């Protein structure tokens, strides 16, 4: 049977989807770090940033939908290529020497799923925490760690004083850095963005972004553990952050 060959059916098209969806997610990660570094400007600045995120619901939900689509496309392409590549060499070598590849490239199929599980944990903790631990229940059972809708600063900073929250966070951020080290360079190659004059910059950019994002995200739990940023005793009330009152019909 013969059908029209479409771009998304080719291996190169699938890699382009991975590159483009990866860039979308990378854009979010950069913005996410920029926003969360406000934690160093104090509880008020951080909480007001959280309020600001909710001022334009269309933007918030637009971003969420684009990200969900990007995650779905990235995973679907990765799975499709992974199963194809497994089938492309059914009999393995008894001896195989790697000459060029690096740790990051070889572990993409590990760092990706680790990131996925970490993001699910991260969402359950800091996005849906208020729905899971209701009515003053202690988050993860930690004494004095209760959800405050209007105080995301405390929700984050108190969490980062507990090892069981910090450990998966550190693992997730390291997986992100390793994934990006190969992913950013790989995206240029997959999209055919190469030029002898600029080629060396592709690896440099991948290293710079991976290191900057990893250290940036790690600085927050590090500061909380060292006591450089501390939970606030101030009380905050923002109607935008409080859950809508439940109306019983």
């Amino acid at each position, binding site marked *: 049977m013969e059908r*029209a060959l479409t771009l998304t059916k080719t291996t*190169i098209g699938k890699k382009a989807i991975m590159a483009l969806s990866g860039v979308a997610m990378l854009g979010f990660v950069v913005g996410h770090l920029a926003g969360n570094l406000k934690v160093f400007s104090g509880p008020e600045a951080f909480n007001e940033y959280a309020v600001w995120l909710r001022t334009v619901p269309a933007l918030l939900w637009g971003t969420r939908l684009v990200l969900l689509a990007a995650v779905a496309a990235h995973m679907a392409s990765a799975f499709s290529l992974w199963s194809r590549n497994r089938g492309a060499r059914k*009999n393995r070598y008894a*001896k195989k020497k790697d000459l060029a590849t690096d740790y990051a*490239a070889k572990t*993409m199929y590990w760092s990706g799923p680790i990131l996925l599980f970490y993001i699910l944990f991260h969402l359950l903790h800091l996005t849906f925490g208020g729905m899971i631990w209701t009515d003053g229940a202690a988050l993860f059972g930690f004494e004095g760690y209760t959800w405050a809708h209007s105080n995301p600063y405390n929700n984050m900073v108190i969490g980062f004083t507990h090892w069981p929250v910090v450990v998966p966070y550190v693992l997730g951020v390291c997986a992100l850095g390793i994934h990006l080290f190969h992913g950013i360079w*790989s995206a240029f190659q997959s999209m*055919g*963005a190469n030029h002898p004059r600029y080629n060396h910059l592709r690896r440099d950019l991948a290293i710079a972004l991976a290191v900057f994002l990893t250290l940036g995200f790690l600085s927050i739990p590090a500061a909380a553990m060292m006591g450089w940023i501390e939970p606030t005793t101030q009380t905050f009330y923002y109607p935008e952050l409080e859950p809508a009152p439940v109306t019983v019909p």
Partner: protein
Amino acid sequence: MKTKNLTLHVWRQRGPNDSGDFERYVAKDVNEHMSFLEMLDVVNEDLLENGDEPIAFDHDCREGICGMCGVVVNGYAHGPQERTTACQLHMRQIFELGWDELWIEPWRATSFPVIKDLAVDRGAFDRIIQAGGYISIRTGSARDANETPIPKDVSDAAMDAAECIGCGACVAACPNASASLFTAAKISHLGLLPQGQAERTDRVRKMVGQMDHEGFGSCTNHGECEKACPKGISIDWIARMNRDLLKAMTTSADDIEERD
């Protein structure tokens, strides 16, 4: 002149449907000036004398330009010498590494089925070329030299890509058994030249379509192929192929048929 006894673990497989296994041989008094294939020739002489089946392996020119030979030696496609085909690999280079034991395997890829022992069927490469790796232009009688101007750097670049001898080491070395380097080199060497422009869009679509159809894996940008390539073909050509395909698929009005 140095000689040495080597232990060989050679992949023996009676045919495409045989499961195959390693067989141990001792290569006695291997001369340092022998090529790798000459060493196998001597082992085969012994096997024939004892009435055993000789080891089947591909070879033709034995001067590193035809692309016929190729085995994986201790995990290295074409052996450990950089930019060298298996036939131009010499035993002194193996002695220098202090290797006493060699694991000799065929290219392993589902799209390169083993014919026998170390010989694989690379017909998939031929079919990729048949799909579009040519210029169907009526050349007529001989033309004047330099009638079609081609800048020196362009002809040099086209020659760099055309250096590919189609040996399949890129597929053998790739963790995904991808044929991207081969296909990219063939697409690029024609696509760079003025004569190749007319079919550039169709060529990339047809050749990539055939590459995928043959069941090769996808490129995950590890760069193993470039290092294993005896001709030093650069993975920059893969980026160029990707660019050509993305452009062709997003701007061309015609469909390309996909084979099932």
